[in-house]
Structure formats: structure tokens, C-alpha cells
């Protein structure tokens, strides 16, 4: 660990905190403002699209209408992508003449991109045509992100709105949220962002792959492509699907320390901003900052642990002669970024359900690798995916408020609305589904020959790889502990189902919570009311998240990274 290393992390934290309020205000104006910013230029475009779909933007939807619109739209996304991938050999913009994508991989990829996971069972540069990359995949980077933000806002509206008892219990209009997210937030920012990336050396070209002669005089084919445009939304929309297999470790995706820093910031900027937006919607910005604080603490704890673990030599490499580990565990890391920036990237990308990587998590020390795994298993709510992080943590806020309410002897209420049996039921469903997917599939995978045959490592590390894969899928993260060949029929199918369940089986209950909260009478706060805009609440929230997450996954983690750590410390290797 070095001072410079810590300084990078601190500077990042400060920059993030500074960006939160402006980003939050911008998002608030886009989604909740009377007149969104740049309405003069973008307003006509927005209205054009509503006319095109035949949507009345002023007509709001109930939670179930919102959920159905969201599901229909997502199903449409899966089908179109599936079709494009299956037909890529006969479609244009395929200079490398890649064959059609096989059915299981096409299903996996279509669900992966629709669910904002961007798990890639394939190498982009050797499987996907330019058309597939742009029309089938990059498109989802925008829509899946906008869907996530929309759902988060719908839920936030449910919690914060105060409506008359006889008013319709609506949460907003899905099509409006979708449109505004893309039009006012994602596209304009990505336009500038992509130009910036290109200026730093990120590729943006339609030229076919180029064969070059290396310094050693060997021939090498360099994969090229329209990278910068995808790179921008990959980070901003917490998608994480790299243009190249090496993702943000690839110099064409992430060429300079500056791009690395900006990429890191762009992962968190929308999720962090949304906490402020939420506070504005609740008419009390402390509510938003309390959520932000809980997220920030969890992030800081994660990055500190990861950096500490990675700055130590890897015990497994200690017996290998000639490996200098004085700078920490550098295996699988870009020397350009070093230990600190790699640990930071790994933490941020798994806190948010981004999944882009600039180092190989598989090569982290057992405890260092535990951090990304645990981050995902907390439920992707440490800032989390765009929108997904906010709605996930709001479920935990509801649970925390419930426990706190009992402990202070008052029927629990959040933002003045009572938490009752129905909300608890939905919140518990939400909390239950996540471990059910992860543990269920992992348990299946580790005992089935078609599950374990994909493993590159046996022993506890293999277990970690499988756990990580399904956590990543259920959490819609998309990063991988490399070392697992997931491009098999079972893996593609199981992961596809895990991603769908991890997205939609969780969104529906949370929207239902929004729907049942929106019509509730607002109870005036009194001395006996537990305040939720305070550090005490942030602390409680962190406690509940950690306890629930830890209790759920500790036995599995025990057999994976923990056993591996103790074995490696004892000098044994599998």
C-alpha cells in the first residue's frame, strides 16, 4: 500500500461526492421537473417519439401497468436481439464474416444485454459482427439503463408522492421515463463522453481488423471497431460489456490513467446522483444523503479491503522462484494501472452492477477476490446499477425502518407512510429471490458434471468461480471470475435464466411496493417517529444490508474464498 495508492482512492471518493448533487439535480429536472433541461431542442424530438408510439405522455400508469409496459418492452428487446444474432451471417456490416450465433449463446446474450448484465460468454472480437455489436447489443446498453432508472424513479415516486385518497395510484409513465432517460441523459452525455474517449485514444472505426508486424517480427491481427461509442455507454449505463474480451484492461478501450479515472466516475455518477434525486423527491435532501452515506461507507470498506489484500503478496505465488511481489499481487493486473487503481476498479464495478473490468478478478488473492464477490452478493446496492442500486437499497431501507420502528415502539413508517404486511411480504420476496437464484444454481452447478466440466480450477477456487458466475448473473453485474468456460449449453441457459430472474422477478415486487406505498396516508412525524435522514439510519441500513448478506452467503463463501485463503496462507495450492 502506498500513499499515492490511497490518494487515488480518496480523490475518487471526493470527486464522486462532489458530482452527486449536480447529477442529482439534473436527473430531477429531467424526470420530475416541469420543463426538462434543453427542452427547446429535445422537446420536439421527445414529442415526435410519443406520436410515433401513440403514447399519451400525460397519462400516468399504475404499478401493474408500468410493470407490464416494462416487461413487454424487455421481451421485445430479447426477441429482436435473439433474431439479429441468429441471422448475423446474412445481415450486413459483417466484414469478418462471422457465422450465426448458436441458439444457446444467442439466448444468453440477448437476456444478458436486455437485463443490463452484459455477461459475455463469447469474445466480442471473434464472434460478433459490427451490426450485432451496434444494433443488437449497444442499443441495449441505452435501453436497459433507461429502464433501470425509470423503475427506480417509479418506486421513488411511490414512496415520496403524497396523493389525495381518491386520486389514481400512479407511478409515472414507463414510456416517458424510458424516452427521457435516453434522450436527455444517456445520449447527450455519451456523445460528449465518446468524443473525450476518442481524444484519449479509444478507437472509433468501421475498418476491418488489421494485420500488423510486431517488434519481434511476428504477424498479429489487431481487432478494431467502433469502440469509443460503446465504451461511453458501457460505463455510464453500468452495462460493462466490453467491445473486446479484455474489457477495460484493453488499451483500445481504456488507454490512459485519465480515461481510467473518468470511466470509474462514470460508473457511479448516475447511481450516486439518483440518491440526491430521491432526496429532492422526498422534499428532504437528507433522506437522499442518508442513503448515499450508507452506500459510500460500504464502498469505502470494500475498496479498503481489496486494496489491502491486493497490496500484499499472493501467498499462492510465494513458492514460485523469481516472482517479485514487493508491489503486491500484480498477477492479472495491468501494470499501467497498478494495484490501487485495479482494486478500486474491481470494487466500483462490482458495487455498481457494471461488470467492466480493468484487471482479472480471478487472479486476485482470495480475500481480494472476496470483495467483488461479496459486493455482488450484497445485492448490487452499493450505488448499484443505474436505477437498480436505488431500488434495491430502498427495499433494505424498508426492512431497516421496520426493525427500527419495532425497536422504538411505533408502527414502522418510512417518509411518513406506514410499512405494513403487504410491503413486508413484497420486500421479503425481493430479498429471497436473490439467494435462491445464486445458491440454487451454484449448488446445481457444482454437483453436475456439465457444471464442473467448464472449470479451469478445481478445489475452493473452482467453487468461487461458479459462485461468482451466478452471483454476477443474478445481480445483473456481468463481470466474471475468468477461468470458467461459460459458453456451453447448460451454462448459457442457466445463466440466462439467472439473469432474467435476477432482473424481472425482483423488479416486479419492488414496483408493487411502490404501488402499494403511493396511496398511503402520510402520517405526521412526531417525537416518537424514527428519523430516516440521519447518520444513525445510515448506520442501521449498513448493518441490515451486511447482516442479511453475510448471513445468507457466509456458508458458501466459507467453502470458497475463505477456505482458499486459509489454505493458501498455509502454503498449499490446488
Amino acid at each position: 500500500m502506498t500513499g499515492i495508492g490511497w490518494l487515488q482512492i480518496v480523490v475518487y471518493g471526493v470527486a464522486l461526492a462532489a458530482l452527486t448533487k449536480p447529477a442529482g439535480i439534473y436527473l430531477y429536472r429531467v424526470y420530475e421537473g416541469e420543463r426538462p433541461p434543453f427542452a427547446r431542442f429535445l422537446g420536439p424530438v421527445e414529442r415526435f417519439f410519443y406520436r410515433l408510439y401513440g403514447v399519451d405522455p400525460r397519462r400516468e400508469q399504475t404499478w401493474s401497468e408500468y410493470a407490464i409496459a416494462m416487461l413487454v418492452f424487455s421481451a421485445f428487446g430479447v426477441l429482436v436481439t435473439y433474431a439479429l444474432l441468429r441471422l448475423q451471417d446474412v445481415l450486413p456490416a459483417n466484414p469478418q464474416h462471422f457465422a450465426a450465433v448458436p441458439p444457446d449463446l444467442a439466448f444468453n446474450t440477448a437476456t444478458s444485454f436486455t437485463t443490463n448484465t452484459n455477461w459475455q460468454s463469447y469474445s466480442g472480437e471473434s464472434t460478433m459482427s459490427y451490426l450485432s455489436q451496434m444494433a443488437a447489443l449497444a442499443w441495449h446498453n441505452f435501453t436497459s439503463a433507461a429502464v433501470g432508472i425509470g423503475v427506480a424513479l417509479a418506486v421513488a415516486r411511490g414512496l415520496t408522492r403524497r396523493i389525495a385518497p381518491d386520486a389514481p395510484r400512479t407511478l409515472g409513465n414507463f414510456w416517458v421515463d424510458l424516452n427521457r432517460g435516453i434522450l436527455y441523459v444517456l445520449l447527450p452525455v455519451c456523445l460528449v463522453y465518446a468524443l473525450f474517449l476518442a481524444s484519449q485514444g479509444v478507437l472509433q472505426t468501421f475498418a476491418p481488423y488489421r494485420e500488423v508486424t510486431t517488434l519481434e517480427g511476428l504477424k498479429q491481427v489487431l481487432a478494431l471497431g467502433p469502440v469509443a461509442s460503446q465504451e461511453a455507454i458501457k460505463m455510464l449505463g453500468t452495462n460493462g460489456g466490453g467491445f473486446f474480451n479484455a474489457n477495460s484492461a484493453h488499451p483500445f478501450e481504456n488507454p490512459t490513467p485519465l480515461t481510467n479515472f473518468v470511466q470509474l466516475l462514470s460508473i457511479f455518477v448516475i447511481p450516486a446522483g439518483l440518491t440526491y434525486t430521491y432526496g429532492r423527491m422526498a422534499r428532504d435532501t437528507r433522506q437522499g444523503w442518508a442513503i448515499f452515506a450508507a452506500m459510500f461507507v460500504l464502498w469505502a470498506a470494500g475498496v479498503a479491503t481489496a486494496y489491502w489484500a491486493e497490496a500484499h503478496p499472493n501467498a499462492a505465488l510465494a513458492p514460485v522462484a523469481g516472482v517479485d511481489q514487493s508491489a503486491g499481487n500484480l498477477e492479472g493486473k495491468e501494470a499501467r494501472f497498478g494495484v490501487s487503481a485495479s482494486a478500486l476498479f474491481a470494487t466500483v464495478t462490482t458495487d455498481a452492477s457494471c461488470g467492466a473490468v480493468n484487471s482479472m478478478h480471478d487472479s486476485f488473492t482470495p480475500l481480494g477476490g472476496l470483495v467483488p464477490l461479496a459486493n455482488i452478493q450484497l445485492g448490487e446496492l452499493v450505488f448499484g446499477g443505474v436505477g437498480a442500486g436505488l431500488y434495491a437499497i430502498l427495499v433494505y431501507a424498508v426492512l431497516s425502518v421496520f426493525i427500527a420502528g419495532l425497536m422504538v415502539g411505533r408502527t414502522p413508517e418510512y417518509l411518513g407512510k406506514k410499512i405494513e404486511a403487504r410491503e413486508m411480504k413484497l420486500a421479503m420476496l425481493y430479498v429471497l429471490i436473490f439467494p435462491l437464484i445464486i445458491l440454487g444454481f451454484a449448488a446445481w452447478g457444482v454437483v453436475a458434471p456439465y457444471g464442473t466440466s467448464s472449470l479451469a480450477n478445481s478445489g475452493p477456487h473452482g467453487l468461487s468461480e461458479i459462485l461468482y458466475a451466478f452471483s454476477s448473473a443474478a445481480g445483473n453485474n456481468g463481470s466474471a471470475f475468468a477461468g470458467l468456460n461459460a459458453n456451453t449449453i447448460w451454462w448459457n441457459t442457466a445463466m440466462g435464466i439467472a439473469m432474467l430472474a435476477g432482473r424481472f422477478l425482483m423488479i416486479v415486487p419492488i414496483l408493487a411496493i411502490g404501488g402499494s406505498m403511493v396511496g398511503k396516508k402520510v402520517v405526521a412525524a412526531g417525537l416518537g417517529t424514527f428519523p430516516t435522514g440521519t447518520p444513525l439510519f445510515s448506520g442501521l441500513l449498513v448493518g441490515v444490508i451486511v447482516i442479511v448478506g453475510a448471513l445468507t452467503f457466509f456458508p458458501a463463501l466459507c467453502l470458497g474464498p475463505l477456505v482458499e485463503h486459509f489454505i493458501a496462507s498455509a502454503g498449499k495450492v490446488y
Partner: protein
Amino acid sequence: MRAGVAVSLDYALGALFSLGLALYLVYALIRPERF
């Protein structure tokens, strides 16, 4: 061989019990007023 069968039987029984309990608990979760 016989031990192997016994062990598999254990796992099958265990799985059955767990499934039953899980169904019962899910019922208790969605219909709490009946308890």
C-alpha cells in the same frame, strides 16, 4: 455399493423434506393471516 445407495437415499430424503418445508414456508409467507 450399499453405502452409496444409503447416502443417495439420504440426500433424496433430505431434498424431499426441504422441498416440503420450503413450500410450507412460502405458504406461510404469502398467507400470514392463516397462522
